[in-house]
């Protein structure tokens, strides 16, 4: 042990030098490596690093689907691709043929495209084409131009097209609701996009998903009260009638009077929500809700209601309408001819202005006004669609005889088609005034009792005469059923009075009269030709829609059996 220690006391000198050299070489190597990374290869490495970078990518969330009351889709969001470019990359790296090929696929001129890209060369994002077809997206991807990529977006499709365009409305290219249900329920339908962190290469292609920062939150679905089949019938019949009479416009509303569910709502002119280019305010306005007009005779049942309530009239009370003209405060109220003595029911059947005015003038000065006010005329219905018209009813009952007289036959106030449907629903639902709704499972305010159930029944009985032979709207009769309704042919108010040749034809009615399941109102503006009366213009539209609704819902016919319209079998099938 001691001998070995003694031998190693003096190590050879070269070992010390070598150790020193190795130790000195280490920092030199490190320094050299640093120089090579920072100075020699620096730009190259930095470029590579930038190209493989972490990015936060947004994950689009789709909008909720809109269904009809039976779950059939009315509006669906489907994924589409948008082509975008990173001008900074494309300007530097894409070759001339690349851009020419890209322009050809996108069906654009290469020169303006190149100019547009050059102009934005400092920017990192530029849409080339939004919402392209899947085939086009594939062709763009196949070109593999550096700096050009696809982005997933959602586009709204409306399978029913024009048929339910007004109710649904539409969205803009960024998927925000612009009209109708799409706008009113935008918050409910819209989804919140998610985000994920991804690793991308220099062509901005995602190489690897790193982590999810936020899940996309898709929009919620919405079920409407519309019935797709009835909506189609409403659309088809209204369109045919507007064309047949070369009318300016038209609206139709079909409602369930007990719940206030709007089963169909259509307007003409209409638009296809799938094609944004067609859209002008003139076309996409939901006239049934936004347009108000003076309804005319269709308001007479409410005058009769006020008269019955006063206790001075019964349906059989005789009203003198001869000679067919009534002078009220310097104005004259006219009937189309002299009807002579009419019962109260007859005033409705023949639609006598003189009779209605006489009755109204014999009542307390506010009686008719109060009846109309209780029916929600002059206030929005609460449907919830954008742009709803409140209609107009004077804020206080007028004391002037001429105004009381004109109110009795539907002038001096204005309503929307929807408001009329709501007011008639009260007659149909034994006096309960419903709040119209388009949302199937929404909360419904309690209906308001606005007339006695017995009076509503009396009105329905009187109104069935309108569609029977001798009434003003035999065209609205549905075979097999008792139909209660009322026509209205009013002149349009223009500057300085009422137009001589511009009419609004309305039919409002319900069926079956003994226990109404449906209320429908048809309004047609400015029908041309000699047939401008509501019976022949609006009646057939009502008949077709109501007939379909009753048949599709298997409503039991309530017409007396002796009518030869139906074969009646006994308890067993034939």
């Amino acid at each position, binding site marked *: 042990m001691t001998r070995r220690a003694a031998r190693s006391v003096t190590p050879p000198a070269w070992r010390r030098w070598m150790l020193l050299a190795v130790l000195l070489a280490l920092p030199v190597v490190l320094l050299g490596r640093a120089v090579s990374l920072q100075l020699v290869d620096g730009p190259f490495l930095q470029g590579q690093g930038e190209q493989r970078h972490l990015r936060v990518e947004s994950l689009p969330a789709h909008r909720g689907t809109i269904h009809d009351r039976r779950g059939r889709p009315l509006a669906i969001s489907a994924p589409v691709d948008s082509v975008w470019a990173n001008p900074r990359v494309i300007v530097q790296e894409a070759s001339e043929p690349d851009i020419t090929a890209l322009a050809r696929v996108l069906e654009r001129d290469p020169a303006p495209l190149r100019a547009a890209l050059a102009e934005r060369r400092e920017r990192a994002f530029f849409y080339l084409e939004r919402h392209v077809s899947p085939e086009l997206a594939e062709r763009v991807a196949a070109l593999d131009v550096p700096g050009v990529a696809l982005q997933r977006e959602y586009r709204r499709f409306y399978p*029913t097209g024009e048929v339910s365009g007004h109710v649904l409305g539409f969205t803009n290219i960024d998927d925000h609701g612009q009209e109708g249900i799409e706008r009113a329920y935008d918050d409910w339908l819209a989804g919140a996009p998610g985000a994920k962190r991804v690793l991308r290469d220099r062509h901005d292609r995602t190489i690897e998903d790193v982590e999810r920062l936020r899940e996309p939150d898709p929009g919620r679905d919405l079920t409407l009260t519309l019935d797709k089949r009835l909506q189609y019938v409403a659309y088809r019949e209204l369109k045919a009638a507007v064309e047949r009479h070369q009318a300016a416009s038209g609206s139709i509303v079909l409602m369930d009077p007990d719940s206030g569910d709007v089963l169909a709502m259509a307007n003409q002119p209409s638009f296809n929500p799938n094609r944004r280019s067609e859209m002008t305010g003139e076309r996409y306005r939901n006239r049934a809700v936004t347009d108000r007009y003076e309804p005319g005779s269709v308001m007479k049942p409410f005058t009769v209601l006020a008269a019955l309530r006063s206790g001075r009239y019964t349906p059989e009370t005789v009203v003198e309408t001869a000679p067919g003209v009534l002078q009220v405060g310097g104005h004259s109220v006219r009937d189309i001819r002299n009807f002579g003595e009419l019962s109260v029911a007859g005033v409705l059947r023949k639609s006598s202005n003189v009779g209605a005015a006489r009755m109204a003038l014999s009542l307390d000065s506010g009686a008719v006004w109060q009846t109309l006010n209780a029916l929600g005329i002059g206030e929005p219905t609460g449907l919830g669609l954008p742009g709803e018209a409140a209609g107009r009813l004077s804020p206080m009952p007028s004391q002037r005889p001429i105004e009381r007289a004109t109110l009795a036959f539907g002038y001096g106030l204005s309503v929307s088609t929807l408001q009329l449907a709501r007011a008639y629903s009260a007659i149909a639902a034994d006096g309960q005034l419903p709040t119209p709704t388009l949302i199937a499972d929404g909360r419904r305010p309690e209906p308001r009792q606005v007339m006695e159930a017995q009076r509503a029944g009396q009105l329905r009985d009187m109104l069935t005469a309108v569609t029977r032979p001798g009434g003003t709207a035999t065209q609205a009769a549905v075979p097999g059923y008792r139909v209660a309704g009322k026509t209205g042919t009013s002149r349009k108010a223009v500057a300085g009075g009422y137009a001589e040749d511009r009419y609004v034809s309305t039919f409002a009615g319900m069926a079956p009269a003994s226990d109404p399941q449906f209320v429908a109102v048809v309004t047609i503006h400015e029908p041309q030709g000699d047939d401008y009366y509501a019976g022949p213009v609006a009646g057939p539209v009502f008949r077709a829609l109501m007939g379909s609704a009753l048949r599709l819902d298997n409503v039991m016919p309530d017409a007396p059996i002796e009518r030869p319209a139906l074969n009646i079998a006994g308890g067993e*099938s034939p």
Partner: protein
Amino acid sequence: MLALLGGVAVGSAVAVVEVRHETRSLFVTLETLRDDRDRLDTAWRQLQLEQGALAMQSRVERIARESIGLEPIAPENTTLIRLEPRRERQ
């Protein structure tokens, strides 16, 4: 004692690596499944649209009228069967 702690430290380091790896591979699986889900959802929406286009009322009506010769039910060819409520129940 020191050896024991060292062993535990090494063991935990290995476990961390193992868990990391597992997280990565599970994340990849998850992303693949999500992609599958998105693809199926896309396909489903496309099919719904296609169905919507094929089931367009106007198209169905045209085919019913022209190809099959159907027509709307008219009152003349309707037979109404009234069932007595009591008899119905038996």
